[in-house]
């Protein structure tokens, strides 16, 4: 039981369409994409504040307890195992947003680059080339989970 109400989870506005595409092709829901990106960003040690480019993407209520547990763990680890941070769920989500923002950048650099095209407001999936993308991303996530974090 965590202390949070409904929080709007934001992503960089340029990733709006990419989140929609990934939800259609690879993941079941936005929170899964967001979590994956946050985990990749955290492992890569990269964190990019959203600033004014933040754009509401989904409600935090869809985030699963396990995912939340991981976000809290990130915050606890980042703050040298101080659990006071757990009290401010919004702050926890903001930290996750920054890691997810950087994580999407890593994802684009390392794997998604060849499956996206520029869609005007940001990258979008090139649907003609992403038949096997779910498997490619799964393999990428799994392989990455076996490697040492940066």
């Amino acid at each position, binding site marked *: 039981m965590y202390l949070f109400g409904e929080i709007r989870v934001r992503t960089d506005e340029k990733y709006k369409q990419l989140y929609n595409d990934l939800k259609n092709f690879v*993941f*079941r829901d936005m929170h899964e994409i967001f*979590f994956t990106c946050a985990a990749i960003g955290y492992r890569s040690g990269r964190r990019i504040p959203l600033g004014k480019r933040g754009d509401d993407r989904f409600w935090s209520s869809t985030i699963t307890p396990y995912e939340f547990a991981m976000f*809290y*763990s990130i915050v606890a*680890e980042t703050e040298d195992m101080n659990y006071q941070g757990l009290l401010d769920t919004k702050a926890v989500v903001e930290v996750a947003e920054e890691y997810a923002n950087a994580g999407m950048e890593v994802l684009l650099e390392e794997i998604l680059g060849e499956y996206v095209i520029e869609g005007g407001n940001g990258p979008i999936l090139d649907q003609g080339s992403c038949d096997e993308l779910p*498997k490619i991303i799964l393999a990428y996530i799994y392989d990455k*989970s076996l490697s040492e974090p940066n």
Partner: protein
Amino acid sequence: MILKSILLENFRQFKGEQLIEFDSDKNKNVTVIFGENGRGKTGIFRALMFCLYGKKKLSQDASVDESELHLVNSQELEDKSNEGKPVESSVTVEFEHENRKYKLKRSLLGILDEGRVIEQNHGVKLTIWDEEGNTSIKKAPELVKERIENILSPALREYFLFDGEKIERLTRASTEQRREISQAIRKLLNIDTLEKVIGATMKLSRYFNRELEKKATGERAAIMRLQRKNEEEIETGNREVDSINRELELARKEKIEVDKELEQIREIQDLLTIRTDLEVRLKDTEEGKNDILRAVKGLAGPTALLLLRNTANNVFQNIDRRKQAHEIPSDIRKDLIDRILSEMECICGRKIEENSEAYSRILEWRNRIPDNVTEDLTLNLWRDLSSARDQFENIEESAIQILTKFATLKNDQRELERKLEELRMKIGSSERADASRLDAHRLGIDRKILKLQHELSITSKKLDALHDERRQLTVRRKTIEDEEGIRDELTRRGDLVEQSLVALNRIHDDFTAESRVSLGDNASVYLSDILDEESRRNLKSIRVEEDYSIQIHDRWGKPFLANISAGQRQIMSIAFIAALAKAACGGLDFLEMPLFMDTPFGRLSHEHRKNLVQKVPHWCSQWILLATDTEFRDFEAQALAKTGTWKSFYILSARKDGSTEIHKTTMEDALGYICQKGKGD
């Protein structure tokens, strides 16, 4: 004819110039050319046939389109095509015949044009040296053809220069085969000339009959009219028989062609069935892949949890350690400490001084204890992480399983696609062929053949009746002429012509029958020379039947061809070929012709091979044997060496560029080489 040498220049597998000198001494008359399959033995046989007769196709190429047969060496063509130059390919054969020396060179020009080989004749030159050393040169193809065919006619050449295919075909009792043998026998015996004389005599007989008919009266005139009518009917009947036979032959050939097409289609039909099966499997595989991709959609998110496995473990262990240390949940509640601090009195009643050591410790203690909310949250986190950690293994296993399954399906898909592509290449355009249409057509041909056979039978019976009638009419006319005492000059001449015709026909029939018997007898002698002991006990003689098919008789004189083995059939063919060659040489015991045999041992037993290599050198003036490493082994080589007739040995070996090189060696070295090769294999 004695072959002296053959020089190949950029011909088939033979790049550059390569020479074979044939042994032709009286006592050393055997040359062995040895090579593995595909190294060019048949290329040498082909070169000889090409040089002597300008013939590109061999009997084994029956189903190959001549335009697909290329004689110019392909490596040389590729080399020269880069320079845009044509390649000259030639074969030069030197031989002796009836005290004259001959050198025949036939050339081709080849060029590679956008991957397509274009070949054209580039001349022929025959140089002849007579006994006095005078030289004459012939370059006109017709003159060269005439000269060569006089030495060895095309009807006979296949009985001196032959390959395994020819041997195989010889004992088949097909119309074509029978005609081929009949032509060879007629050519051998010069029956053509006799038949021309018979034809001319028949014309003369008809002339006399017409003249006599004009002067005849009464019953004699009536009989002569009947005779003329009978003659005309016989002629018509003969023409009909010829025509039916031609039609039959065409129908049979057509049936063979249709069968070939059907065979091809049947092969394709099998391939089409395999293709359908592969396509179904490919579809299943693709569906399996799609199922996996759909399943992956539900797995990517949970699998991402694994990315933070270390973080989750660290945090879990940290909380766990703090739990173990009873830091959480804390033993003393924070509100109790707050009350002690506000009342400045311990629960034991002792007063606490501000800024005292006890006060500082209580303050420090208070700061270390999380508030209730944080503590609850931390414990919640501990429980969730504990549960998440339990899931990691399942998630990981699911990811591995699904990725492995996908990889397997992907491999299956690639393999199936590769097989399908191969099948598509094999099936090609003939897929469009309509098997049912061909089947119907074949049925039509079968009916036509049956109808023609029926017509042939009726016409033949009609002809037999006409011949009977003719004989009766001749007797009746003769009787009347005798009774009426008609003995004028015209009648006498007519009689003479008629008697000549009967005599000539009898000579023709007797001569061919005798030749057939003689050929059979000679073939039987050769047969007994080379048959193995077991076969000799059962197989007694070869007979050339009236229809020119070859038959073998068993010891009880019964036809036995249908029961002999493939090897015995080959031996029988070789014996018959030797008998034909003997007849071609005027019945001499020793053939003044080379026997050029390409791969003749294919199906022969050891004993047959041994007999063959021991006997053939003594049958003919020259034996050139082209043999593979599988049919001419240590055993055969030793047997041949024992005859004392073998001198030269040529090995056909592969060069790095795939062309063939001819090495000459002696018999002694050959024996070592073959023995070594046998051990190596």
